[in-house]
Each structure stands twice: as C-alpha cells, then as structure tokens.
C-alpha cells in the first residue's frame, strides 16, 4: 500500500501523543484567547474561570460555548485574536445581512488550513504527479481557496477553474487529463451527467478521485457519482468559522472523516443540555481551535449533528472520525451547495404582498436538491381571475430566484394548512435522505 499521508507522524501518532499535543496547545490557546479576546474573557469570567482552570483537555468541558449568535454579535472584529496588521486574509460565509460570518487568518492560519487540505488530498492517494481541478467557488467562499492551497502544498498541478461553466470544466478535465476533482457533490453529479450526455464513458474520463464537500450528500449519491465518473469519491468537512474545508477528511475506508486533531478538538454534545456525549451517540459537533491565531474559536457549536468514533482505522490514522453530518440544528439550509435561510424567503414573500405563512420543503430527486415553497393564500392576494393568481405565483418564483440564486417552486395552499406547532409554523421540512 502506498503511503498516503501528508504528515504521517502526526496523522498516525499514538493517542497518547495526540493527547499530549492537545493538552499543551489548549492551555496556550486559552491563555491567548483570554489575553486577546475580551468578549470570550468576559464569558469565562461569567463562569468564574481563569486560564489557570484549564490545565488539560479534561478541563475543556468547563469552557463556555460560542455560537453563531456570538459571531453575529461580534461582527466583524469582536473575536479577533491577532492584531489586524498580522492578518492577511478574510473568508466569509454566504448568507443574508446580519448572518454573514467573517473569519480572519494570519499567514500561520492560512498555512495550517492549507496543510489540512493537503492531508485530505493525500489521503485520497493524491501526489505531485496529479492534476487537481478545483471547481469549488473561489473568493469569499472557503472551498476554492482551501483546496487550491492544499493542492499546491501536495505539489499537484492545480487547475483553478472555480465553479460554473460546465463546458469549460469538461474541456480542462479532458485536455489536461485532470485526475482529482474538488467540488460540491451535487456539482460532481451534474458534471457526471453532462459528460455522460456528451458520450464520455467512465473509461475515457481521466479523473481518478473526487473530493466533495460543503453540502450534505448520501451514500447512494456517492455510488452514483463514482459510477458515472469512474472515480473514488471522498467526503471532506469544514466550516469557515473553524478555517474551511479540511477540518476533517475521508481516507481510503470511506466511512467517516478523520478530524485533524492536532489543530482541532472535536466534542459532540447534547444540543439542549450542552452535556458532552460519548462516542457513537449523535449530537451537535463542537470544535475548539488549538493553534489558530486570528480567529481562535473555543468550543464553537457547529449545529451539525454527527457522532464520533475512536475505532482503529485500517488507513493507519489515529485521528478520531466523525460520521457524515446528519443534519443541522439551526435553520440554515444548504441546497445545491447554496446557503438558503428561511428569512430570505420570508423577505421575498413580504415584499411581494404575501404574509409570512409559508413552509419550505427540501427534497432530493435524482441527486439534485429540490426546493418547494408553500405559501398560504390570503384574501388580499386572491382574485377570481386564474391567470392573475398564476402570474403572481410566477412573479414570486422569480423574486425567490433572484434572492436565493437558485430556483424555487412556489405552491399556493389554502389558509391554515401549514402545520403549526406551539403557535409557530414549522418552517422547514427537509426530506433529503442523507
């Protein structure tokens, strides 16, 4: 078996070694955050904590959580852990006003992140002989820049196509014999279908490996993409708040993602009580950054639901594995790789004269996410003219498309038909079986 490691000593270190690294880095990091981030210091003080109370990772549970709400409150500089003059980059998540997260990076942070991506690429068998096409978006989104940096570190010939322009994507894959493809799984599925439509068989497609993340996908989808493109498809996990893709990555086993434990401590908690849960139990994933400088989040609640496993992995890595996230605890939806917030849909409805009585139905048909918005009819929006009601329905659809960037189908429903619990409508029904 080939040696598919970027940093073997760390990735395959004994649990004791990992533990020692985490203990040491955590103590330092808590001190760093205490000194640099008054917002978090205040949170610690509220709990009667000082850095002296955190002597090893056994003390991690004492630390206060950070959530997306904290990030909003601290926007943009409130959680900055390094002087701005030392920062070299920001990345930002897509979202509506007030929901945007801006994460800062020093050069050290960028290197750390890119190293995580390099580990992910090498874990799939990638080497400096590969041609790595990065079809994630470049820009504020972390997908493109992260994998681009990782690809450089591995020494692949990097093809920074960014997202979109399927014809050009296919041209580069074929003409430059790309062997590694990095993009969202839904885009990979789409590329596969497009190549198939051009009469390209898996044998003719030079790709060997796909590294797909940034949205939820299923095992069935994996198999389907693997068959159409003739590749092995690997999952990758990350989030802007923690750094970006590469926080965790899949190995040859393809059954869970190894978390880069020398940089991040993962915990799974009960989202209601905050209590830490044992291995194998589903709960909310929480990350603590161990050595990030500019955006050093401690105990950040990701809202992703997953479980952890310390079982021995045949790939040789000792890093804990997380299962593929089963969903999110909050209301953000990732549909066809695009972040969609119910609040955006609400805005369009209100602007178009409809009330905020709606329900969002997300499903997956033939590996493509579908978005349906049910809207309750009101006396104000009703006329006896069928054509006019239908026209308003279409106007609403185009309003949603320009707000969300993806197509949504509007269905007008009778008043009071949308299920309400505790007086509040259930806004989102996600039927995707991931």
């Amino acid at each position, binding site marked *: 078996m080939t040696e598919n490691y970027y940093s073997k000593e760390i990735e395959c270190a004994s649990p004791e070694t990992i533990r020692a690294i985490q203990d040491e880095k955590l103590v330092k990091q808590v001190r760093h955050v205490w000194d640099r981030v008054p917002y978090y210091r205040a949170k610690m003080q509220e709990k009667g904590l000082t850095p002296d109370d955190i002597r090893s990772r056994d003390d991690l549970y004492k630390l206060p959580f950070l959530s997306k709400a904290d990030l909003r409150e601290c926007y943009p500089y409130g959680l900055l852990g390094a002087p701005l003059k030392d920062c070299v980059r920001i990345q930002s998540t897509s979202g509506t006003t007030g929901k945007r997260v801006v994460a800062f990076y020093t050069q050290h942070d960028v290197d750390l992140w890119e190293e995580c991506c390099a580990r992910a690429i090498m874990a799939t068998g990638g080497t400096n002989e590969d041609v790595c096409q990065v079809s994630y978006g470049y820009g504020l989104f972390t997908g493109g820049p992260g994998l681009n940096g990782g690809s450089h570190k591995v020494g692949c010939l990097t093809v920074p196509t960014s997202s979109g322009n399927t014809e050009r994507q296919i041209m580069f894959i074929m003409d430059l014999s790309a062997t590694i493809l990095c993009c969202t799984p839904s885009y990979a599925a789409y590329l596969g279908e497009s190549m198939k439509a051009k009469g390209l068989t898996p044998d003719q497609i030079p790709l060997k490996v796909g590294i797909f993340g940034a949205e939820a996908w299923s095992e069935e989808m994996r198999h389907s993409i693997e068959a159409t493109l003739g590749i092995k498809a690997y999952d990758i996990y990350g989030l802007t708040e923690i750094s970006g893709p590469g926080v965790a990555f899949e190995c040859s086993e393809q059954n869970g993602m190894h978390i880069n434990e020398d940089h991040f401590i993962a915990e799974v908690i009960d989202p209601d009580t905050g209590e830490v849960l044992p291995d194998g139990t589903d709960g909310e994933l929480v990350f603590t950054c161990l050595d990030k400088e500019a955006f050093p989040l401690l105990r950040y609640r990701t809202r992703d639901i997953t479980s952890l496993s310390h079982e021995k992995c045949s790939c040789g890595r000792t890093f804990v594995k997380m299962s593929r996230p089963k969903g999110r605890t909050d209301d953000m939806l990732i549909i066809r790789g695009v972040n969609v917030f119910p609040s955006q849909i609400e805005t369009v409805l209100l602007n178009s004269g409809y009330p905020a009585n709606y329900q969002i139905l997300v499903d997956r048909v033939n590996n493509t996410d579908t978005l349906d918005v049910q809207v309750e*009819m*009101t*006396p104000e929006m*009703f*006329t*006896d*003219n*069928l054509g006019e*009601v*239908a026209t308003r*329905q279409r106007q609403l659809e185009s309003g949603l498309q320009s707000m969300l960037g993806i197509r949504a189908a509007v*269905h*007008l*429903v*009778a*008043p*009071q*038909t949308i299920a309400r619990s505790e007086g509040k409508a259930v806004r989102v029904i996600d039927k995707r079986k991931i």
Partner: protein
Amino acid sequence: MSVKQISIFLENKPGTLNKMTDVLADASIDMRALSLAETKDFGIVRIIVDDVIVALSTLKAAGFVCSLTPVVVCAIPDEPGGLNRILKVLTEADVNLEYMYAFLGGKDADHAYMIFRVDDEDKASAALVARKFRVVEQEEISEL
C-alpha cells in the same frame, strides 16, 4: 345590474372541493351555478348561490379564502343560436369577456342562464337590456 358571484380559492388536491360543499350544505345554501378553473396547484371555484351573505360568511368562518365578484347573468331561450345572439350583442358593445359559464334546469325549463364575467358589467347589462334580453337581478336568483 349585476349578480354577486362567490369566488373561492381551493388547493388542487383530493377532498378540497368536497370540504367546501360540506360547509355550504351545512348552512343549507342552494347553489344555482358552479364553475371551476384550475392549474396544477390550485383552483378557483365560482358559485352563484341563493343567499350570498350567509354563504360568504360561512365560507370565511370555515377558513376559505373567497371574494365577491360582480357578474352579469342573462336568461336565454334554450334553443340553437341562443348564446350566439348574446355574444353578438356583447361584441357590438365592445365588452371584453374574461370567462363565462352556464346553468340549465331552473324553474323555467325553456331558458338557460349564462353567467358572464366582463370588464364592464353596467355596459354589458345595458346593451343586453336594450336588445330585450332578460338580465337577472340579485334578488331574482333565489327564485330561479
């Protein structure tokens, strides 16, 4: 001179029309005419009833979205060419027709009743009356 039609929003799925007729039956409403227009997702039911006020308030109380629409109801002899003659009048009066439907079998077996949704009820009614057609008033609906 117009009659009030009740227009009701219905989702296009099993049982919705029946739910509406349940409500009307419980309120002892007698429907004189009914027409249905639908898309894939929803439909609009238009009805002429004997008691508009009771029907409308009952439907609203039951949670239906509905509205009142003025329509012109015209009696025509139930014989070949009857509708054709009326439409000619409307064409000559330059009245635009949005939709129409009919009902037969009122107490007067020799006549059919056409219901017209037009852009100008007054103009349409006046043109029809001038040509000696019988235009039905709201009060007459319960007698039909």
